[in-house]
């Protein structure tokens, strides 16, 4: 269990301390990021289907292609999230004179994404629940499509399911942040305080943005 997922989730300090004894390896973090990418790809399928239903009949034949393209973009987006978080942590930690290999930062950031897998599964479930009940009327004009899109955004912003999914996502992000603090502490050789600031500043901004979006203040 020293390198097990349970230890990452419940005792990340000891886990990363132990990992520091080995050479950096991106294999398992990449698998975690791939899992998140897959979950993200699956979660966009219902919204893609709704978008397809809005399109004129002559464009319906492109449905499969558009679905695959959307899933691929979502999949890559999941992987990109891993890389972006890693670089942000690496750059911010430089403010606190962090020292350590970038590869180690990327590795530990990937481990920190593990809670996002559970959050992604729960969020996808809510997404299917919300979007499967939508009634898409036949639309013939661009104005109708635009009007429908606006109403769809309104629903996604106001539906309790969407808000619950958003809250759940924030909670799992907090869990990831907790793991990342321990990860940055060891990967960048930071004090606990500096590691908390390294993770807390970007993640805090992200969570703040999420809350503002959920509350409809934007």
């Amino acid at each position: 269990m020293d390198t097990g997922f349970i230890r990452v989730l419940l005792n990340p300090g000891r886990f990363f301390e132990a990992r520091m004894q080995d050479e950096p390896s991106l294999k398992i973090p990449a698998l975690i990021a791939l899992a998140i990418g897959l979950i993200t790809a699956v979660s966009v399928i219902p919204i893609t289907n709704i978008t397809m239903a809005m399109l004129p009949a002559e464009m319906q034949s492109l449905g499969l292609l558009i679905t695959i393209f959307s899933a691929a973009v979502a999949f890559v987006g999941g992987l990109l999230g891993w890389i972006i978080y890693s670089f942000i942590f690496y750059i911010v930690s430089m403010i606190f004179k962090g020292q350590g290999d970038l590869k180690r930062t990327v590795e530990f950031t990937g481990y920190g994404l593990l809670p996002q897998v559970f959050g992604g599964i729960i969020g996808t479930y809510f997404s299917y629940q919300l979007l499967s009940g939508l009634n898409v009327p036949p639309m013939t004009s661009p104005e109708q499509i635009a009007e429908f899109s606006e109403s769809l955004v309104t629903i996604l912003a106001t539906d309790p399911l969407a808000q619950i999914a958003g809250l759940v996502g924030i909670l799992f992000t907090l869990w990831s942040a907790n793991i990342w603090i321990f990860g940055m502490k060891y990967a960048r050789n930071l004090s606990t305080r500096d590691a908390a600031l390294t993770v807390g500043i970007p993640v805090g901004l992200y969570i703040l943005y999420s809350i503002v979006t959920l509350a409809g203040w934007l």
Partner: protein
Amino acid sequence: MKPIYLAIVTLLCAVLAVAGPASAGPADITVTSSATDPPVLMKGDTGTLTVTIQNNGQNTVAISSARLYGSGVVPLSDSYASVGEIGAGNSKTFTFTVRADGGEGTFYPQFVLDFRDGAGSLRYPVPVQVEDTVLSASVIGKPDAFSEGRTADITIRVGNPRPNAASGVQVIPQGTGITVTPTGGFIGALAPDGSATVVFNLTPTTETDVAFQVIWRNGINTHTTDLVLPIAFGEDKRQADPVITNVEVTPIAGGYRIVGDVMNAGLESARSVLVTPGVPATPIDPFRVYVVGTLDPDDISSFEVTFRADAGTTEVPVVVEYRDDDGNRYAATTMVGVGSVAAAPLEERDGGIPLVGIIIVALIGLGIAGAIYYSWRRT
């Protein structure tokens, strides 16, 4: 003067003194007045004819009988078979019951007095006027249109074009499918060329004819005149007319929200105004029904209703219910299109999702908080 002449003169005076009363009878009796009650009869009316005579002479006059006869106006009562004597300067009144059997005009039935002892008789034609003109009735006030269950004021004017007064005048509305208050209007006496009005509150439930029966008496004779008022339902030009404008349809969780304005474009107030979504829409909380209250003419009020609609529904009716001043209920429906924004979730969530969601979020939050706490404790 010779005695013989004196004797003759004395004898003549004695003879004159004995024979005087008999010879003064017919000449001294005169008809001083005559009258009918009612003053003017109608065809078929029964009335009384009164004749008064007076003895203008110095002696008593013996009368055997008094009679009335004629055509057009015929006596119904018996003659005075034995009248008796009427003293000097006295009057006597004879009353006969008569009936107008002829047409209109002035008739002259003969009043005949027969004197005793073959002294002849007195004939006097009594003028009796017969006129068939009836009281007139007209509607001088009514609404532009009648509506089912809506109370309307009906004003009836009754006029008397007859030369004599009518008594006991009243107006009784009659008909089926109506409710009238009061059930009758009493006017009483109506002088010649006079008029009076009666106001009725009439509430029709069906299209029908209402007869306003004018009942009056001419003497002891009762007469009627009917005034028929057709009750046909139509649109009241003054009635309230709620119009829905500025409608905006917004999808919400579990349904739709319609916000808009309702304006009274009529000339009368709309009371107890309610706005509700109609079938096939199903009202849902929080605005199953929106109570606007009273909308005076040209008043405007915003409203908001929330509802759920089945898949494929492209438009739903928005029903405005209101009442008039009499409490009659009306409804106006406006169709509102929802097809282009029909994106509402269809699943029934029974309003329990927020509670379940809160529980889920709380459990996940507790679990994550526990994991974070545990990770720091083990450090």
